[in-house]
């Protein structure tokens, strides 16, 4: 039964309980102590040792159609998208990255040999290689907790239910209802990001999808992410043509010399 996250950014209060719960459950190391000056975001990005990251965007524009405040502070808890077409999984040569019974994308740390091909395969810039142990790491959608019939640590910790966990079909229904509610309240900018294949054909939909109120770029999300293998066809074709060209050149070179000397 496919499960995943629906992260509703209009409910996020930027408390970062998700970041801490994730780190604590997975015993991940800290990423260093650096003041970035990027609003309240000192974590900066998802990487091998940060699997939930809260982004903060201050903007001189209101959220809703009734601009009582001409200012808004957008917050988003970013996470691995567990794409239906996952670039990292399709690139992984060792088969370390698998699709679990929950439809999540999971890196088996005892198989990964740190080749780094998943890193360039992810159009969201999520997965990364840990320089200390050389392996690739990312959100597991709390595979271990799910196996024990528990919800992921971040969803459990989130006090406002901005992070909702459940069966994808249910989440999609809830998300659609929420969009309708927000539109009714004058938040016409609200939309779903990656909720299904139709709206994000490049990944064929995400198992961790979002409700946003601004363009994806504002949150450092790609506007049109594509799993690389989906459009690799022409590249392979080009390789085939080149191969034949190599062969022709080789035979041509030999034949022309041999032929002259017969």
């Amino acid at each position, binding site marked *: 039964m496919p499960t995943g996250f629906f992260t509703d950014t*209009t*409910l996020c*209060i*930027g*408390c*970062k*309980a998700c*970041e*801490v719960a994730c*780190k*604590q459950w997975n015993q991940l*190391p*800290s*990423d*260093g*102590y*650096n*003041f*970035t*000056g990027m*609003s*309240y975001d*000192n*974590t900066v990005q998802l990487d091998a040792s940060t699997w939930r990251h809260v982004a903060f965007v*201050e903007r*001189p524009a209101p959220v809703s159609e009734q601009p*009582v*405040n001409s*200012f*808004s*502070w*957008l*917050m988003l808890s970013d996470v691995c998208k567990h794409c239906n077409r996952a670039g990292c999984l399709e690139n992984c040569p060792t088969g370390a990255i698998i699709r679990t019974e929950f439809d999540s994308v999971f890196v088996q740390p005892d198989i990964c040999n740190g080749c780094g091909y998943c890193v360039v395969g992810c159009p969201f810039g999520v997965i990364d290689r840990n320089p200390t142990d050389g392996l690739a790491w990312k959100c597991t959608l709390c595979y271990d907790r799910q196996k024990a019939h528990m919800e992921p640590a971040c969803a459990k910790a989130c*006090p*406002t*239910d901005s992070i909702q966990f459940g069966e994808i079909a249910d989440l999609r229904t809830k998300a659609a209802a929420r969009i309708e509610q927000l539109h009714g309240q004058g938040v016409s900018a609200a939309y779903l990001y990656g909720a299904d294949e139709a709206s994000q054909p490049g990944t064929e939909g995400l198992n961790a999808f979002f409700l946003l109120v601004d363009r994806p770029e504002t949150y450092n999300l790609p506007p049109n992410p594509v799993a690389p293998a989906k459009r690799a066809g022409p590249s392979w074709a080009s390789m085939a043509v080149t191969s034949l060209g190599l062969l022709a050149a080789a035979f041509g070179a030999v034949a022309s010399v041999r032929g002259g000397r017969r």
Partner: protein
Amino acid sequence: MAECHPVGFQWVMEAKRRGAKIIHVDPRFTRTSAVADLHVPIRAGSDIAFLGGIVRHILETGRYFHDYVVTFTNAPAIITDEFRDTEDLDGLFSGWDSDKNQYDPKSWAYEGVEPGQSGTTHEQSTGEPLSERAQMQHKHRDETLQHPRCVFQILKRHYSRYTPEMVEETCGVPQDLFLQVAETLIQNSGRERTSAFCYAVGWTQHSVGAQYIRTATIIQQLLGNMGRPGGGILALRGHASIQGSTDIPTLYNLLPGYLAMPKAKKDVNFAKYLENNHAKGGWWTEFPKYIVSLLKAWYGEHATRENDWCYDYLPLLTGDHSHMTTYAAMADGLVKGYFIVGENPVVGSMNGGFQRAAMRKLEWLVVRDFQLIETAEFWKSSPENERGEVSSEDVQTEVFFFPAAAHTEKDGTFTNTQRLLQWHHQAVEPPGDCRSDLDFVYDLGQRLKALYLSSNDPKDLAIQNLTWDAKTSDDVLREINGWTVADRAPVEGYTKLKDDGSTACGCWIYSGCYKDGVNQTARRKPASEQDWVAAEWAWSWPMNRRILYNRASADAEGRPWSDRKRYVWWDDAHHKWTGFDVPDIIADRPPSYRPAEDANGLDTIGGTDAFMMNADGKSWIFAPKGLQDGPLPTHYEPQESVMRNPIYGQQCDPSRMEWRRRENPYHKAWADPAYPYLITTYRLTEHHTAGGMSRWLQWLAELQPEMFCEVSPEIAAEKGLHNGGWATISTARAVIEARVLVTERIKPLRIRGRLLHQIGLPYHWGSKGLVRGDSANELIAFVGDPNVSIQESKAFTANIEPGRRGRGRGPIAGTQEGESGQWRDQPPARFKKPGKHGVVTARNISGEET
């Protein structure tokens, strides 16, 4: 609230989901503002003007909840004709004694009521002013609210000049925004709808802090929001169990359950104590039962009627023992030793430099904490040590550090901001030498008892006769609940307590938490299995009542104000009160009951006396007694402000506490040219108070790794500050440095055509831990609210310059040698004498008798 109470804030989000409007008033646009419907930027320190403006608007437009006001508040009460308002005396009330620098509240009393001996003068701040309120029943009322000296008319006159224009000038809130708030609030109050206020230390930590809350209560009384579902005022406390620490107090001036601490010279024996705290009417008439039961709990079989229940063992207050007063006394060498348990005052309290100087005079110091916090290492890790002014070899204090167990390593309860006691179970054993505070104190008591065992000195009976067998948290909770002495059976609540020595109870308001021998605080029935009041989740005091004063949710006849807001009501058929919650009125007291002239005790509580903790059973819009700085909240500027008080000549709260000493220099009262910016301090979600629980934890430390200041782009341009760069902030007390975060969230306010800049400082950092930084509170002076001696950390002045601070020796910028206060341009406020700490020295503060 989202920043400091994210878990509690989920209920605000739930309310929002159901259509509630969220209004956020704060100098900064915070994470709360991000999800609020309306953010109102306000000048830090001007909330009374804002709230007073709302009061005026309600009265002006006549949209107060008339029936509620007449039935449940003292609005109809008539005040003595000696009363003079701030409108008459340019910011002072009648009764100001400029020699003693305090008020005599005689002229605030109800007409025809003698204030009583305990109410005339007070040498000490008293916290829950039982003695002050106990006598106040009003005899003369005008239910038409027209009498010129009735509270309602006095109120109207008092706030008559708090117009929208005045609000804009004082608070920097544009008039249309202010009116939008007022209208939203008014339209959402009344029979069919209620509104709630939530506040935290942004209101309390001012030299006039208690009055901020008072103004909110006046609004809520006028709008009929108290005691009603969805209404009320939620006081968000500073941490998980600070409500518990006032209920079973760690405060010097209270006994458990807000009983008055006896005072030397006044409560010289038990009879006097009872007399001085005797209530003429209302629920406090039950008070003797609570004090006797408390003494029985403490002294067991030794406490008998013959020896006044061992009352004479209790220590008596000789003065003000509040935090800042004690530290000032410490600096004068009057305190020998000190326990600091679970706090970090050199970071979290004011003027750290002064506090450390004081601690260097201690002979011994005991610190209990998880980490070696800055206070534990004040003798070697401090700005003074760093600058080379103090060397650790010169500090004579003997410091004992005891590692403490965390809340997951011990059983116990938290009492949260809703008066909810929730038991938490020990999950793991404390590591190494860590032990809980209970273990420590229990062990300490055992050893003290052993030491004093063989003494024949009568004063040592106080230790020898103390019952000391509550070893586990469960034991303690049972004692708090109380039992009948004969069989140790738990009492079911405070209504079963007696004043004849047959019951013992550690804290009367908590009585019932172990009802039927079941730990009620450990109940965890999920909300999905209960009704919307969910009374079977944990236990709230008193008596598991969830909304206090809920009698006010029904009208004079006991019918709910509306069907939509029904909560408790009178069931005539069964002759009792009933409803969704435990009714906050005597169960079988009909709404029509009126007490006889000569009624005593609980018979004095009438059927419409919802606010029975006041002697007159009414909520007090006008407080004839109990507050040191006036019966009605008045806008005063903070001790250090950027402007003159626009409303009155009286600049600051006249009764505030000051400490005029070399170590505690004050800036000019307004527009000090050396310190032109208004500063406010606050918390961040990622850290916890003075940092002991977060700066040592990597996963929290990395979220906010460095001390920073928040400045507007306008100040940044003016002063040359760069986002991500450094700034130095200075006051006469200290100089600190911080990283710079330039943000539009802390907009300058337009007041009288000029831009008023505010700068924000989180206060979590100190010299130790995984992440370190300068402490914001070093900048702030000792100034105190007169009622509860709380510090003023939310509005003060400072200067800011780009770049890092210097590191070398030398005087701190701004400190001046010589006479303290010579540059302060206001007359000194009252200096409260510290209580004696049992130390006899050659120096006395004054030759005064105690």
